[in-house]
């Protein structure tokens, strides 16, 4: 019991949070320096993080393992701090002042959950399709590029869109539009229009992405902002007194 309490006390401390934040900052600096040095980092965004880590030498990725470990410890520290703050019976503290940092912590925990999901299961692929052409996936579904449209201004493409069709293996076809910042979503997977070409053939570069963490990151972001806004209002009032 004594050991569990000692571990809880270490992990619930603000001092621990500060130390972990400081170490994480150090690993981020190392990462930012290391990333441009190795060509393997050009592929890091083309697959899930854990898939990429499994095929990349440790001497190029060691800082990422440290960062992941520190983030995991920070999440534990955040949860312990929140549990302690919520069960502590301090009648002098105002409820909104107690709850707002916990909302921020909850938001942080959701964002980290999002990163974990994305790091495991995110996937991405590119396909260049001619207008009228299509590609059949391994599950029997087919993606067609029906039509592309674009606008030119002084030689630059200023707008573009693609009409696509998606047929599943039951023969049900869906027609959708994909444009920059307006991807077409098919069962949670996005079809992104990245580029169009008209010479030598009318064709489009499509990106197919699945990011399972995105919705959890958004949930986390909402909690984080509600908590921070509440804290800013309360703290600014408190400091002004």
């Amino acid at each position, binding site marked *: 019991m004594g050991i569990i309490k000692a571990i809880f006390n270490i992990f619930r401390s603000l001092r621990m949070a*500060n130390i972990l934040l400081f170490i994480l900052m150090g690993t981020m600096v190392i990462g930012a320096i290391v990333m441009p040095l190795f060509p393997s980092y050009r592929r890091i965004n083309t697959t899930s993080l854990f898939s990429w880590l499994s095929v990349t030498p440790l001497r190029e990725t060691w800082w990422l393992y440290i960062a992941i470990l520190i983030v995991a410890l920070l999440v534990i520290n955040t949860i312990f701090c929140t549990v302690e703050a919520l069960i502590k019976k301090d009648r002098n503290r105002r409820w909104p002042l107690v709850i707002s940092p916990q909302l921020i912590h909850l938001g942080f925990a959701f964002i980290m959950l999002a990163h974990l999901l994305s790091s495991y299961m995110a996937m991405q692929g590119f396909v260049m399709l001619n207008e009228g052409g299509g590609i059949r996936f391994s599950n029997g579904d087919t993606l067609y590029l029906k039509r592309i449209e674009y606008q030119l201004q*002084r030689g630059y493409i200023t707008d573009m869109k693609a009409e696509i069709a998606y047929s599943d293996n039951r023969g049900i076809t869906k027609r959708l539009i994909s444009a920059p910042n307006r991807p077409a979503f098919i069962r949670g997977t996005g079809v992104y229009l990245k580029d169009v070409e008209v010479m030598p053939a009318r064709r489009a570069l499509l990106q197919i992405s699945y990011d399972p963490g995105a919705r959890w990151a958004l949930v986390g972001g909402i909690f984080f902002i509600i908590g921070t806004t509440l804290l800013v209002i309360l703290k600014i009032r408190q400091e002004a007194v």
Partner: protein
Amino acid sequence: MILLFIQPLLYGAALLWEKALFAAITVQAGYLLYRGVTLGRLPLVGLHDTLLFLSLSTAVLSIPFWVRIRPRKGFFRLTAVASLLFSLLGMLSRPSMMPLPPVLKTFWFELHVVLSFLSYGLFGIAAVLGVIFLLNRDVAMGRMMESLQYRAVLTGYLLFSLSMIFGGIWAYFAWGSYWLWTPKELWTTLLWLTYTLYLHLRFRPYWRGARIATIGIAGYGVVLFTYLGVGLLMKSSHSF
């Protein structure tokens, strides 16, 4: 074009006569408005526009602080110098006249950039307040500077967090993922962690005073490197 050349002169004049700051703000806002109307979009792409917007943000956001500070000459001069410096650097950078790439045509991008630079302005003000704290021997004045620095950082942190969330939403719609592994994203996270650390350290009495004021100043170093250093030295989704 004449507005572009007048605004640094007015920031310079504000060092001698405080009210010239309002003229500088008006002229600079007028120039950015003119660019916005000419280009048909928010002028927030490239160093020219963003440096001028940072200069304007710093000047405008300093007003609620300098009406509270007495005596305010030191604070006023330092923020005017910062705005002058950014406006001169902006003037020296070539304005981007190219049509906007389709991926930047979204209000998520606009919200992301506007909130980023507003938060940078507040972090700059926090650094100025930290410098005044360290140079000041008056205890009451020092306490006020530290408290104001905390308020600037906390508000800047909220705006910066919002900017990151909007940036994530934009990235998801533009690139298929709310997070991309690039040096710029790492430095942005580092910047966010720096101010997270600041806010956590301030809870501990040991860190209050000169130590926290120094971290508030160092944080601005991270801001400037994230904005200028990383943007100029490293390739990322933020290079356009």
